[in-house]
């Protein structure tokens, strides 16, 4: 209509006028006055008497109020003004009803806050881009042996070299492992987290040094000068950020490494949770370096960067072809193995993801319940305001204006609730961080940052729309007539509204049931977990780890000698009852799984899985840990390095592999280098232990004497009634007396270790229970509100009934029927939903089925009981209604 320039002018004028309303009013009033004066003058000139002149003038000019109002409307920004007016009105209305406002804001704050907190965790761990450039191109490449049940494991260096050479889909590939080496020469010997890598790693991950340089391919050649790159944090912590460190050497496991560079603190790979670490070339690692020539073994973690333009199926196809080729060329090590790839994120997340998504789903349900509660509150309030609305309608407000104002009120409520929720999240996230299990990656990155904030804002808006739509729908149909009538405030609540509120309350119960069942199942599962016997004694057992630097303790004989000496000294310590050595210690140290052959039995068919867990132990191990000896004998000092090789197997191994015969006397072929294929005679059978995790059933296990298969370190298990501090001091003392440069690490009581291993399960159970509790309270509030209001509405009816002779019991029955209906409907809808939802818990629940009837009945009864309790007060109030007062009350 107007040219764009004109529109701009008009807007500018309106804006200016809007900013100076008083001035505008004053000016216009002045103008009108002057105009009026002119008219009066004119009339006087025509000979009219003063009074009629003024009256005539006023008529000619027109109604002043109307003119001023027209002027006001034409000159300012009506939309903005309406909004501001509505907001001010809303704030006033909310302040008047402080109880309602507080309740609504609190409810919403809980819902938004909890969701924001959980989302911040989900975002930091599952969604945020990994802290490496172009991380979406990075993939983890692994070997798979489906038939032996190996889902994903590493490569050997020899195989990796072939892979790297033959593959064309990846622009770069590198291998990595983690180790702990002892740093000496700088104060006390300290253990540093070491990442052992092939030299291409830094280029692969797009890292440039802060000072100095990163690895070059020359650094990876055998015989090259050992070099190391430090992480910035380690550099600051241990070397005071001294730039002169470049070129100097530090001792790792008693061997000199030259520091050539520092990388930024943000780079953490492959140990994403370690902020202080250093990198050395694979070839220089005391342990893994010696494994490099072997083609067998699966220990190197491979990461590759997919070339742009190469699709996943293409890359997979190429890897399949390479796997076939490797199987053909090197059948002994690679036959039956395939190669897979997964985005790098999977490496860090693996099983935490499902737990987090379930928690997010649960907390979303809590928000839904909150919204239902607030909608209920709003509906109740709408009823009591129906008179006010009717009056406004009569005064000329259009329906759209009223609805707009109510929506503004809802929006203001939503804004306050959302802000409070965000504040709650800010407070709650650090608390959440502190109870998270330590196995979770990137824990330190969990915080309320921009994206999380955005999520909170969007969620608040969505929630506001949800609970705001309900009362808006009903208010639109307000019947003005009935509302204005006497008593309209109460009786005016239409049938529809009562039904809606009951439906909402029932819905809250259904959702609460879903959460309660999930929490109940998690709790039972966790209880089962804690009750599970690991198969060995844990009380009063302290575990400690000592690593032997391979450059000083070069031969297995020296390792064995060290361990013997240490055991002897520890036995001699007063207060320490018994000490055993075990590598790996059950549950504490993960597990080692080796393939084996039974001498004399037919060769394992391709497809038959012949692997078992492995541990190398001192002779008194079974005794110290209370593992029963079921047949044959335990190891003894005669099973020395030069003696014939022996082994002891677990009960389940005996059952599975020797079902119809006595295993004693048979020979097994297995082991770690240097005598991997040595035949070992089975001399004993012991009870099963849960060596992998408390929740995992024990599998076949084989033990060898430590003297015959020593390792480069020792894990001592000390049984003692003394305090951990005393035991730890004793261990350190004895270790230092043998070699003062050996640090003792990871000292912990076995019960604590087992506790930590269940940390994730506990975390999930804790949070779900918390959410279920909140849901329960909210649902109870919902029921309370609905029944209370129903009673208040029906006060008249109750009064009449009582006056006509109804007993208190009859009134009780009448009100209870309503409670029953709502609760019953809620449970009826809730039970199938809860059963369906609990199936999603899947592997998270151990020892209980997802459809466990006992748990379901228990939580349903709990919910019903709480609902009954919530409705007790209003129901009692109903029975105490005095008919005279009720009938008078209008």
């Amino acid at each position, binding site marked *: 209509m107007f040219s764009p320039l*004109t529109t701009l002018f008009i807007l500018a004028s309106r804006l200016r006028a809007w900013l100076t309303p008083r001035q505008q009013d004053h000016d216009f009033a002045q103008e009108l006055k002057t105009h009026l004066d002119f008219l009066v003058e004119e009339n006087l000139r025509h000979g009219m008497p003063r009074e009629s002149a003024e009256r005539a003038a006023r008529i000619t000019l027109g109604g002043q109020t109307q003119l001023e109002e027209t002027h006001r409307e*034409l000159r300012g920004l009506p939309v903005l003004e309406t909004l501001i007016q509505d907001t001010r009105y809303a704030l006033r209305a909310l302040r008047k009803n402080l109880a309602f406002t507080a309740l609504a804001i609190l409810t919403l704050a809980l819902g938004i806050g909890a969701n924001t907190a959980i989302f911040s965790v989900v975002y930091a761990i599952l969604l945020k881009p990994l802290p490496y450039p172009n991380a979406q191109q990075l993939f983890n490449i692994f070997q798979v042996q489906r038939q032996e049940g190996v889902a994903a494991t590493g490569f050997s260096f020899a195989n990796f070299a072939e892979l790297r050479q033959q593959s064309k889909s990846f622009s770069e590939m590198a291998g990595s492992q983690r180790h702990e080496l002892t740093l000496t020469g700088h104060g006390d010997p300290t253990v540093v987290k070491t990442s052992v890598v092939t030299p291409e790693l830094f280029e692969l991950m797009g890292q440039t040094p802060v000072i100095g340089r990163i690895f070059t391919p020359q650094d990876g050649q055998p015989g090259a000068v050992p070099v190391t790159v430090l992480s910035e944090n380690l550099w600051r912590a241990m070397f005071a950020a001294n730039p002169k460190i470049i070129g100097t050497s530090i001792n790792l496991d008693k061997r000199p490494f030259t520091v050539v560079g520092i990388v930024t603190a943000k780079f953490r790979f492959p140990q994403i949770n370690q902020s202080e670490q250093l990198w050395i070339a694979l070839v220089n690692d005391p342990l893994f370096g010696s494994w490099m020539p072997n083609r067998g073994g699966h220990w190197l973690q491979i990461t590759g960067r997919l070339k742009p333009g190469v699709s996943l199926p293409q890359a997979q196809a190429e890897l399949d072809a390479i796997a076939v080729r490797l199987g053909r060329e090197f059948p002994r090590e690679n036959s039956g193995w395939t190669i897979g790839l997964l985005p790098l994120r999977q490496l860090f997340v693996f099983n935490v993801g499902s737990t987090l998504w379930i928690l997010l789903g649960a907390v979303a349900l809590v928000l839904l319940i909150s919204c239902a509660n607030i909608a209920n509150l709003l509906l109740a309030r709408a009823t009591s305001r129906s008179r006010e609305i009717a009056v406004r309608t009569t005064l000329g407000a259009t329906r759209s204006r009223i609805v707009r104002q109510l929506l503004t009120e809802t929006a203001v409520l939503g804004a306050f609730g959302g802000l409070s929720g965000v504040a709650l999240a800010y407070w709650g996230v650090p608390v959440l961080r502190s109870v998270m299990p330590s196995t979770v990656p990137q824990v330190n990155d969990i915080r309320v940052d921009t994206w999380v904030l955005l999520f909170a804002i969007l969620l608040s808006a969505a929630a506001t729309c949800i609970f705001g739509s309900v009362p808006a729908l009903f208010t639109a149909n307000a019947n003005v007539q009935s509302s204005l009538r006497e008593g309209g405030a109460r009786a005016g609540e239409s049938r529809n509204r009562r039904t809606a509120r009951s439906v909402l309350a029932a819905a809250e119960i259904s959702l609460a049931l879903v959460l309660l069942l999930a929490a109940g199942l998690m709790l039972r599962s966790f209880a089962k977990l804690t009750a599970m016997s690991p198969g060995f004694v844990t009380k009063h057992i302290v575990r400690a780890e000592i690593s032997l630097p391979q450059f000083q303790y070069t031969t297995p004989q020296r390792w064995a000698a060290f361990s013997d000496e240490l055991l002897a000294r520890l036995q001699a310590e007063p207060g320490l009852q018994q000490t055993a050595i075990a590598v790996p210690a059950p549950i504490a140290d993960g597990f080692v799984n080796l393939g084996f052959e039974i001498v004399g039995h037919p060769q394992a068919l391709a497809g038959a899985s012949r692997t078992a867990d492995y541990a190398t132990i001192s002779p008194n191990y079974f005794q110290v840990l209370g593992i029963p000896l079921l047949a044959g004998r335990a190891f003894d000092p005669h099973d020395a390095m030069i003696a014939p090789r022996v082994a002891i197997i677990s009960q389940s191994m005996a059952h599975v592999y020797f079902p119809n015969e006595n295993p004693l006397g048979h020979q097994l072929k297995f082991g770690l280098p240097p005598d991997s294929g040595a035949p070992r005679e089975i001399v004993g059978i012991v009870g099963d232990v849960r060596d992998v995790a408390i929740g995992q059933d024990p599998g076949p296990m084989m033990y060898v004497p430590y003297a015959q298969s020593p390792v480069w370190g020792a894990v001592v298990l000390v049984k003692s009634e003394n305090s951990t501090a005393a035991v730890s001091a004793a261990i350190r003392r004895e270790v230092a007396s043998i070699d003062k440069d050996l640090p003792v690490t990871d000292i912990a009581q076995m019960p604590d270790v087992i506790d930590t291993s269940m940390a994730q399960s506990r975390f999930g159970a804790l949070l779900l229970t918390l959410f279920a509790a909140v849901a329960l309270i909210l649902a109870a509030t919902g029921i309370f509100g609905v029944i209370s209001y129903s009673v208040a509405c029906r006060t008249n009816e109750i009064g009449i009934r009582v006056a006509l002779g109804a007993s208190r019991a009859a009134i009780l029955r009448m009100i209870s029927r309503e409670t029953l209906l709502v609760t019953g409907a809620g449970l009826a809808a809730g039970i199938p939903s809860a059963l369906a939802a609990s199936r999603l818990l899947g592997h998270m629940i151990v020892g209980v089925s997802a459809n466990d009837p006992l748990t379901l009945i228990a939580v349903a009864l709990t919910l019903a009981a709480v609902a009954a309790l919530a409705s007790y007060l209003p129901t009692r109030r109903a029975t105490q209604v005095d008919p005279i007062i009720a009938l008078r009350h209008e």
Partner: protein
Amino acid sequence: MPPEKSDILQGTLDLMVLQTLDAMGPQHGYGIARRIEQISEQALQLNQGTIYASLLRLVQQRRISASWGTSDNNRKAKFYSITRAGRKQLQTETENWQRISGAVARILRTAGRA
């Protein structure tokens, strides 16, 4: 919302205000209203206050400008004057009107004859 005036009347009033200011030079509200009444030979008897809506609109559209001054009998009044944009608008609209009234007249003449 104020009772709907017909848009034609609104537009016409704006036009007459412009015409008045163009012919008479700067004027205050009363003067403009009086003049319009005179010219239209009392055929348009409005509440005089209604021109203030037109004046406000025209000021917003920058077709006229306003400033405070003193009237001939020493009264403080707001004087309005036409701007160049206003003059252009007036010219365009006048041409339009003439074209339309010419067409209408011709049609009527033709109808009358038949």
